[in-house]
C-alpha cells in the first residue's frame, strides 16, 4: 500500500510546482529502494517506508487533498503505468545496485564530422526539474577524437563540458568583482552559446600557464593600483576559479556514478582514469604538468582518500549523535555511497531532556536542542517514524511500534577532510553561511585589505600557520579549505537522491541556495535549464561541419606542432599563447597526410606508454603480462623507429632486462636497433657488453650495432607461427 502512496505524495508536490516531473522519481524511489541488498540500499528502503507528516500548512493543500481523493481511485494503476512509460521499461534487476543505478544514468554518443564523438552522461534528476524528456538532463559531455576509426589506440580525449557550467551574466560578473560580496545574485536565463569547456584533457598544461600568467599579472600589475582594484580583481578571480572547480567536482561525481554502472562502457578503464585524474589535478596549480602515467594512481589514491574521509565522518557523526541522544541518518547517492547525513531530534526526547546541560556542540555545530524552546513549538518540517522498545526503527505495522515525531536539526557533508561539514542548520540559516564565509573573509581581509602574505611577513606566516594547524587539527568547522567540494556534492545529491521526501528536498534546496557565496552560481532549477540548453547548443555545434569539426581540425593541426618543431620553438609558441591570453595557438598547415601522421604519433605514444607501464610494473614481466601484447607494442615501435623517442628505447631496454622469454628479448633487440635515438644505441651497447646476458643475445646485440644481424630475430604471427623479420 505504501508504495502507491509515494507517487501520490509526489503528485501533490507536482501540483504545487506546476510540474509533473517528480512523479516518476517517486515511483523510482520505491522500485530502487526495495530492490537492493546492500545495507545502504536497505537503509534507503527503510527511509522510504517511513511515514511522513507534513506540518507546514499551505494554501494549496486543500485543493491538493481533494485531488488526492480522486487519485486514490486510480492509484493502484499509477505506478504500473508510470513505470511502463519510463525510458528503461524493463524492470531493474532488484538484486544489483548497478542495475538500479542504470535506471537514472545513461550515456549518449553523437558522431562528430571529421572523426570524433561527443559522449554525454545524462541523469534522470529528482531535484533539477526539466520540463521535458521525463527529467533526463544532460550533465557532462566529453569529446573524443577517434580519427574516424574504431581502434582505441589512436583515440584522444579532448574537452570536458560540465553542462551546468556556463558563462556568467554581466550582473554576475559585476557582483563577483565586489569585494566581500558573498551571495548569489541571479540566474542566467539567456542561453544561446556553446558552453565553455572546463578542461582540455589533451592540453592540460595550457591551464597551468594560464594560471601562472594571471597570478603574475595580479601581483605585478593589478595589485599596484591600490586596494580597490586589488580586492576587486582578486575577488573576481577567486569566484571564477571556485565556480569552475565546483562544476568540475560535480562532473567528477557524475562520472564516478557512471563508472559504477556495470556493463559495457564507452570509456576504457585507462580513459576513465585519465579523465578523472586530470579533473582532480585541475585543482592543483601545477596539476596540468603531471605526467599521464601517474593519472591512474593519483585517481586511485584520491578515491581511497575520499572514501576514507567519508567513512570517518559517517562514524564521527553517528557517534556524536549517539552521545547527544540525537538521531543520525545517512543520505545516499544512487550508487549507495553516503555523501551527506541528516541529524534529527525526537520530539519526545525534547520533553524528556529539556534543559539538559550536558550537550556538546563539538563537531555538530548546531545549538543545544535541549534548551531551545523553539523546538517545543516547532512549525517547520517534521516526520513521523516508528521505533521499537529498544529505539530501533521499525515499520508502523510492527507490534508495539511507537510513533515518534522527528525534527531535522542539521544536514552535513561527509566528503570532507577530518569533520562532517555543516551545510544546513534548520534553525539558523546563517550558521553554515558564517562558517562558509570564515575562510574567505580571513583571506580577503589579510590579502586584499592588509596586503599580508605568508611569504612576505614572518609574524603573519607564523600566526597563520598556527591558526590553520589548530583549526585543522582540532576539526573546527571554520577556516576549512574544502567546503566547496561538499557544497557542490550536495547539489548533486539533491538532484539524484531518490529517498528524500519531496518536501524535505524542497526545503533543503532552498536553504542550500542561501549559503552559496559565489555570485556566479545558479540555482538548481536554473542549472537544469542551463544544462539542457547548453547541451542543445553543443549538439548543434557538433553537427555543424564548421563548428566542432572545424575546432577539432584546428586542434589536430596544433597537435602536429611537436612533430614539426623542437623544444625551443614549442616553448616560444607557449609563451605567445600565454601572452595573448590564449588567443594565439600555433598550428601547422593543413596537409593531406595529417591524419596518418597523427595516427602514427598517437599509436606510438600509446605503445610507448604501455611499454613504460609494463617495464615499471614488475620485476619479471613474464609473470604479470601477456607477452604477446608486449611484443606487439615493441614491434609497432620498431616498425616506426624513426618516429619513436628515447623513452620508448628506455622502456624497451628495461623490458629486455625483465623478461626471460627469448622471443620477447629478441624483439626488444630488434626494436632497439630500429629506434633512431642515441639512447637505443647505448642500450644495445650495454646489452652487448653485459656478461649476464646469454651469449647468443649479446652477439645479436653486437650484430645490430654493427649494422645487420647475422641471425634474424624470430617473431610470432598472430596465429603463433614463426615468421622471419629483418631490418627495415
Amino acid at each position, binding site marked *: 500500500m505504501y508504495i502507491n502512496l509515494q507517487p501520490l505524495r509526489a503528485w501533490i508536490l507536482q501540483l504545487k510546482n506546476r510540474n509533473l516531473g517528480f512523479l516518476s522519481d517517486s515511483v523510482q524511489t520505491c522500485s530502487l529502494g526495495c530492490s537492493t*541488498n*546492500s*545495507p*545502504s540500499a*536497505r*537503509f534507503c528502503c*527503510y527511509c522510504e517506508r517511513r511515514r511522513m507528516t507534513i506540518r507546514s500548512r499551505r494554501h494549496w493543500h486543500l485543493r491538493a487533498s481533494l485531488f488526492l481523493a480522486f487519485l486514490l481511485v486510480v492509484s493502484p494503476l499509477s505506478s504500473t503505468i508510470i513505470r511502463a512509460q519510463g525510458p528503461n521499461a524493463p524492470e531493474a534487476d532488484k538484486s544489483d545496485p548497478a542495475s538500479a543505478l542504470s535506471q537514472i544514468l545513461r550515456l549518449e554518443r553523437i558522431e562528430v564530422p571529421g572523426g570524433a564523438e561527443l559522449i554525454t552522461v545524462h541523469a534522470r534528476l529528482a531535484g533539477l526539474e526539466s520540463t521535458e524528456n521525463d527529467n533526463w538532463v544532460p550533465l557532462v559531455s566529453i569529446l573524443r577524437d577517434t580519427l574516424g576509426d574504431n581502434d582505441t589506440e589512436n583515440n584522444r580525449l579532448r574537452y570536458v563540458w560540465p553542462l551546468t557550467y556556463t558563462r556568467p551574466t554581466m550582473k554576475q560578473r559585476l557582483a563577483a568583482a565586489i569585494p566581500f560580496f558573498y551571495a548569489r545574485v541571479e540566474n542566467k536565463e539567456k542561453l544561446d552559446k556553446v558552453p565553455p569547456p572546463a578542461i582540455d584533457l589533451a592540453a592540460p598544461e595550457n591551464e597551468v600557464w594560464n594560471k601562472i600568467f594571471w597570478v603574475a599579472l595580479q601581483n605585478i600589475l593589478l595589485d599596484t593600483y591600490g586596494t580597490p582594484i586589488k580586492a576587486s580583481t582578486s575577488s573576481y578571480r577567486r569566484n571564477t576559479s571556485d565556480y569552475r572547480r565546483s562544476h568540475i567536482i560535480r562532473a567528477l561525481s557524475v562520472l564516478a556514478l557512471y563508472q559504477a554502472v556495470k556493463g559495457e562502457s564507452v570509456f576504457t578503464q585507462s580513459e576513465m582514469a585519465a579523465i578523472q585524474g586530470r579533473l582532480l*589535478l585541475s585543482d*592543483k596549480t*601545477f*596539476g596540468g*604538468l*603531471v*605526467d599521464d602515467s*601517474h593519472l591512474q594512481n*593519483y585517481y*586511485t*589514491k584520491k*578515491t*581511497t582518500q575520499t*572514501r*576514507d574521509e567519508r*567513512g*570517518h565522518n*559517517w*562514524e*564521527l557523526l*553517528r*557517534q556524536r*549523535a*549517539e*552521545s547527544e*541522544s540525537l*538521531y*543520525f*541518518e*545517512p543520505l545516499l547517492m544512487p550508487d549507495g555511497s553516503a555523501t551527506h547525513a541528516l541529524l534529527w531530534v525526537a520530539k519526545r526526547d525534547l520533553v524528556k531532556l529539556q534543559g539538559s546541560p550536558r550537550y556538546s556542540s563539538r563537531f555538530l555545530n548546531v545549538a543545544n536542542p535541549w534548551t531551545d524552546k523553539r523546538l517545543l513549538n516547532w512549525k517547520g518540517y517534521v516526520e513521523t517514524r516508528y521505533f521499537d522498545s*529498544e*529505539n*530501533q526503527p521499525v515499520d508502523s505495522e510492527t507490534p508495539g511500534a511507537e510513533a515518534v515525531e522527528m525534527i531535522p536539526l542539521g544536514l552535513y557533508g561527509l566528503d570532507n577532510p*577530518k569533520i562532517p561539514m555543516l551545510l544546513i542548520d534548520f534553525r539558523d540559516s546563517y550558521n553554515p553561511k558564517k562558517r562558509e564565509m570564515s575562510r574567505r573573509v580571513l583571506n580577503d581581509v589579510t590579502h586584499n585589505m592588509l596586503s599580508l602574505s605568508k611569504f612576505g611577513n614572518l609574524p603573519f606566516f607564523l600566526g597563520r600557520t598556527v591558526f590553520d594547524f*589548530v583549526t585543522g*587539527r*582540532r*576539526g573546527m568547522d571554520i577556516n576549512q579549505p574544502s567546503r566547496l567540494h561538499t557544497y557542490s556534492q550536495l547539489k548533486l545529491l539533491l538532484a539524484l537522491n531518490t529517498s528524500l521526501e519531496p518536501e524535505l528536498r524542497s526545503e533543503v534546496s532552498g536553504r542550500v541556495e542561501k549559503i552559496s557565496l559565489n555570485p556566479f552560481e545558479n540555482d538548481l532549477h536554473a542549472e537544469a535549464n542551463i544544462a539542457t540548453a547548453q547541451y542543445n547548443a553543443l549538439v548543434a555545434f557538433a553537427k555543424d561541419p564548421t563548428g566542432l569539426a572545424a575546432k577539432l581540425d584546428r586542434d589536430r593541426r596544433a597537435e602536429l606542432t611537436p612533430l614539426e618543431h623542437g623544444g625551443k620553438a614549442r616553448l616560444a609558441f607557449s609563451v605567445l599563447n600565454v601572452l595573448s591570453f590564449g588567443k594565439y595557438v600555433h598550428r601547422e598547415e593543413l596537409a593531406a597526410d595529417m591524419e596518418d601522421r597523427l595516427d602514427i604519433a598517437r599509436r606510438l605514444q600509446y605503445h610507448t606508454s604501455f611499454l613504460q607501464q609494463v617495464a615499471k*610494473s*614488475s*620485476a*619479471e614481466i613474464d*609473470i*604479470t*603480462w*601477456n607477452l604477446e*601484447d608486449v611484443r606487439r607494442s615493441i614491434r609497432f615501435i620498431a616498425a616506426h623507429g624513426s618516429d619513436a623517442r628515447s623513452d620508448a628505447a628506455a622502456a624497451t631496454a628495461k623490458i629486455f632486462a625483465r623478461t626471460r622469454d627469448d622471443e620477447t628479448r629478441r624483439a626488444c633487440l630488434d626494436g632497439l636497433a630500429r629506434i633512431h635515438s642515441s639512447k637505443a644505441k647505448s642500450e644495445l651497447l650495454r646489452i652487448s657488453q653485459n656478461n649476464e646476458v646469454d651469449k647468443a643475445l649479446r652477439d645479436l646485440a653486437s650484430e645490430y650495432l654493427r649494422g645487420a644481424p647475422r641471425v634474424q630475430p624470430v617473431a610470432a604471427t598472430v596465429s603463433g607461427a614463426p615468421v622471419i623479420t629483418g631490418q627495415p
Partner: protein
Amino acid sequence: MSVLNFPAKAQRRKVSHQCISSSALRLCVFAGVVLFLLLTAGSSLAQTQRIVIVKCDGLPYDVVDRYVKQRDPQSGKSVLPWIDHIFYQRGARLSNFYVRGMSLSAPSWSMLETGQHLQIKGNVEFDRYTLHSYDYLNFFPLYAAGINGSRIDMRAVEVLDSLGLPMLSDAYPHNERYTTYSIFLRNPRYSTLQRSLQNRFTRSPKELFDEWTMGFEIRSAITDQLVKELISKLGDPKVHYLDLMMEDFDHAAHHNNDEQTHLAVLKEMDSVIGQVWTAIQKSAEADETAMVLISDHGVNTDERVYSQGYNLVKLLGSRAGGGHHVITKRRLMLDYAIKGVNPFVPLITTTTPDTYYLKGESTAYPTAMLDFDGNERASMHLRDSDLNTLHILLKELQRGGLSDPVYRATVDEFFGVIDRKRADWQKDLKQLQNELGALDRAIVEQRKLWLAQPKKFTKEQQDAGLDDASKRIFVQLDRWQTEQKEYSEYARTLKNLLTLSSEAFAPNKVRIPDIIPQMSMGDRNTIYELQNYVAGVGPNGLVANPDGSLNLEQSFVHINYFSLLQGVSVRNNVQRGISNRPIDLIATRLSRDLVLPLINERDIDPDVIWVTAGANRQALILSRRDANGELSLRYLPISNLSEDASGRLQFKEISWQAGLPLQIFEDPNLNIPGADRTAWLSQWHSDGEWLQALHKTHYSNGLIGLQEELARHDIERLSTTDPKLSEDERLMREYARRKRELVEPDMLIVAQDHWNFDVRGFNPGGNHGSFFRISTHSTFMIAGGARTNVPHALNIETPYDSLSFVPTVLALTGNLRDDSSPVPELWERGFRKFPGPVVKELLPDHERPKATANGATVSP
C-alpha cells in the same frame, strides 16, 4: 628429523666452543649418528638452507585467495600474479590457517615468532600495581631511547627475552640474519630511515616535481628501502634468515572497506613479493631458499558495512558505568587533539565529571584501565573494589559530619575490609618484599656485569652481535631499577595500610596517598566484586544498620559489570543486519578450586575460562593435559554464574542449545563425526579435534582461542619447581611470573559482528581482535627452490593454527627433531619443545616411512 640436516648446518656454522668442550663420549655418539644418517637417509634430507619470510599484517587468506583467482582483463593473468605464480603454482598454501588466541597483532606475532603458547596478551598491557604500560606497537620510544643507548629492542622483544622465549630469527647467529621493522624488532637501524628519505628525493627532477604536485608518500619510501636492503642481503651467502614486514593492508582495511582500496594495496604487496622472489631466483642459493608469506590475523571488513564504534571509556566514565577516571594508552580522538602529535604517547587519563568520590583526582586515582587495540575486543581493568571501599570510607570519615553510630560503623567496616584481606595482602606483601630483595641483589650483579663490559667492539665482535648483547645488559639494569622503584612504592603503601590499627586510628591524621596507593589498581577483582562493584557512596550517604554495622547495600553504589555491559544498546544503529547491542561476549579466568565443587570433573588445569553472553547463555571452558602434555578442552554450558561474598561460586549446568557463547551448536559449518551434536560437544576433545570441528564456524577456533588468551601457560623461565635453582633464582622467577600475572585484566570484552571499541579515532573500514573466523583466518603460504622439496601447487586444507608456524619452519630447515624439540644447538639458545604440530604436508618425507631421529641424539 633435524639431525638429518645437521651435517649440512655443521658445514656452514661454526661449532660453538661449548660444544667442543662437552664430553668426548657425547661427541662420538653424535658423530656416529650423523654418519649413520648420512649413509641411510640421504633422500629425505631437508635442504632448505635459507628462509625468507614476508610478514603481512592482517592479510586475510580469503581476500588473497579471491583476488588470486580473479583475472585481469588486460593481461589475462591473476590480478595478484606473483602470489599466484609463487605460492599457488610453485608452492603450497594453507587454506585453513588460523590465529590461535586473539586476532591481534602483538599476541599473534608473539606466537608466530616463538612457536610457544601466549605470554603477551594484548597490544598494550598494564601492570595493575604500578600502571606501568607495555605498549608493544609504539616504535618511537625505541628510536628515541636508542640514540643514547638506553633501549635496543622493541618492548615485546624485551618481554620475550625476560621470559626466555627466543624468536625464530634468534635461531640464526647475529650476522646470519636480516630483520626489518616489526613490533618484534631487535636493534633499530637508523640508516634505513635515513636512506629511505634520501632515496625518496634522489630521482629525476620531473618525477620529483610530479610527486610534489600530487603529494609525497613517505610511508612507501621506507618499504622501498627495506625491500632494497633485503634484496641486497640476498646476495650475501652468509645470511640465512631474512624477513620483511608489510603493514599496509591492515592500515588500509581499518580505514576503507571498499574492494578498490584493498586491491590497490594488495597489488603493491604482490609487486614487492615479486621483487623479492626474483631476487631470490637470481641468487646463488635459490635452490635452497624457501619463501614464506605469513600474516598474523584477518580483518573483519565488508564492502557493504561500516564498522560501528562504541565508546567504552565514556560508559565507564558515566554514573551508570561507575564514574571512573579511565586510563588508556591511546589518546581518545587522537586525530583531533593537539596533544595527539606527541609520538611517545604517555598514559592518557580521561577524567570524568561523573565521578562519585574522586573529583579532581583523576591523575592520582584513576580507577579503570582499558586496552581496546584491535578494536573488536577490549581488556578492562577495574581498581580493586576493596580499595574503592577503603578509599570511600576514609574520605567519608575525613569529611566529618557523620553521626556517631555511622562513624563507628564506618570505622568498623574500614578495618573489617582490611582484616578480611589482611592474610592475602600480608602474604603478597611478604612475597613481594622477598622478590624485591632478590631484585636488589640482581641489580648489583647486573651493574657489575655492565661495568665489566668493554666500551669498544671490534668489527668481528659487532658482527657477532656482542655490542648489542652488551647494550642489553644495560637496558636490563635500567629496567630493573625502574621496576624496583615502582613496586617498592606500592609495597610501602600496602605496608602502611596493614599497619593501621583500629585502636589508634585517627582518620584526619591519615594521608590517603600513604595508605591507598596512587596510580594503582591493586589486586584483580573477584567475580563477586565485579558483580557487586563498589563505585561510590550511595545516594543517602553512609547508612548504619540497627545492629551498628554499616549497611553495605545502601551505603554504596554497586554495579554488576556483567549485566551492565551486556545490557548496552544504542539508538543510532543505522545499518540493517547489525545488532544494536555492541557487546557480544565477556570472558574471564576463574580458579579451578572455585569450580571443582560444582562439576563432575577432577583432573583439570588450574585455570577455567568463564564466558558469558548473558545470564542464561554462559559456558565454562575446561582444560586438561595428558601424560604427553597434550591439551584437551571441554565446553560446559551453564547459566547464572555468580559468586557470593565468601567466594563460593554458583551456577547451573544446562544442556547444549542454540544461543550459547560462540554459537557452536547451531552453526551449520560445525564439522563433527556423527550426527549427535550434543554428545560430541559434551565430551573432552584435544585442541586439534576442536580445531577440526570448529574452524569453519562463524567463531572458528574461538573456543581454543579463549583458553589460549585467558589461561596461564607454564614456561621454563616462570617455573620454580627445578630443585637446582638457588633461592634468588627462584625469587626472580616468581618475580617474572608476578609481572605477567599483574597484566591480566579483570575481563575481556568482545564486540558483536561489525562493532568495535576504537575510541582513538574511527575504523569504519574494518577491525579485528575478535574470534570470528573472518578475523582469525590468516595467511600461511610457502614456496621454495628445487632442493627445498616444498611441494608445488598444493592446497593444504587441514586446519592449523599459529602454534604450527615456527616448528614447521624449523623442521623445513632441519632444526627440529621428530619429537618437536629443537636441535641441541637451538636448545642451547633457549628454544624448547614446541607445543604445536608441524604442518606435515610440507615436509619432504610426508606419507613416507620416517627415518626416525628420536633418541638418536642425546636429549638436551
